[in-house]
């Protein structure tokens, strides 16, 4: 009984994860400019990965495989925001202007002298 319940839960997680991946892919194609596409890639990198990894973890139970899946999830969740930020920062420094809904004069401060954070 319990095993069937866990199996069904893991299927639901896997299928929704795959669905979010496809939605993110569609967003990657549909969003109008580079900065908005970063948000679409965010969907596929976060929720899709989290759901699929949780679903797979339920399939294997407590084992070395599950531990490795946890590590994969941790690596992904730590590295993807860093990569996304590096991309966005590089694009800003390169002078790529984001398309904005209003106040088109507001641009990120790429001309400021670098300050030490």
């Amino acid at each position: 009984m319990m095993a069937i319940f866990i199996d069904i839960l893991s299927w639901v997680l896997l299928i929704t994860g795959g669905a979010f991946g496809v939605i993110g892919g569609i967003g990657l194609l549909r969003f109008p400019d580079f900065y908005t596409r970063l948000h679409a890639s965010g969907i596929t990198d976060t929720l899709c990965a989290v759901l699929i990894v949780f679903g797979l973890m339920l399939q294997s139970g407590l084992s070395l495989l599950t531990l490795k899946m946890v590590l994969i999830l941790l690596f992904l969740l730590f590295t993807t925001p860093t990569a996304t930020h590096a991309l966005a920062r590089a694009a800003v420094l390169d002078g790529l202007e984001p398309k904005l809904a209003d106040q088109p004069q507001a641009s990120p401060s790429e001309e400021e002298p670098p300050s030490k954070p």
Partner: protein
Amino acid sequence: MNTVLVATTLAIFLTMALALVRALRGPTIYDRIVAVNVFGTKTVLAVALITYVTGHADLIDVALVYALINFIAIVTVLKLVKTRDLAAEGSEDPR
């Protein structure tokens, strides 16, 4: 059980295909790098799924290493595109 895994793998492949379309369309170099980044993280998930479909537990190490290499590759490509020199010291955003 296997059908669900295979269906999810196919969904991941579809996402990778969509990312490839974006990588081909561009228009800026940064759009292409975002698409390649998505492609890379989806490769990790696809390899993890294939591990469970085939039952070869050793394959998971490939996914683990790919997750790390993908990040380094994206940052390296970004630096190469920006500075045309991998040995250049970063001048902006000092620590």
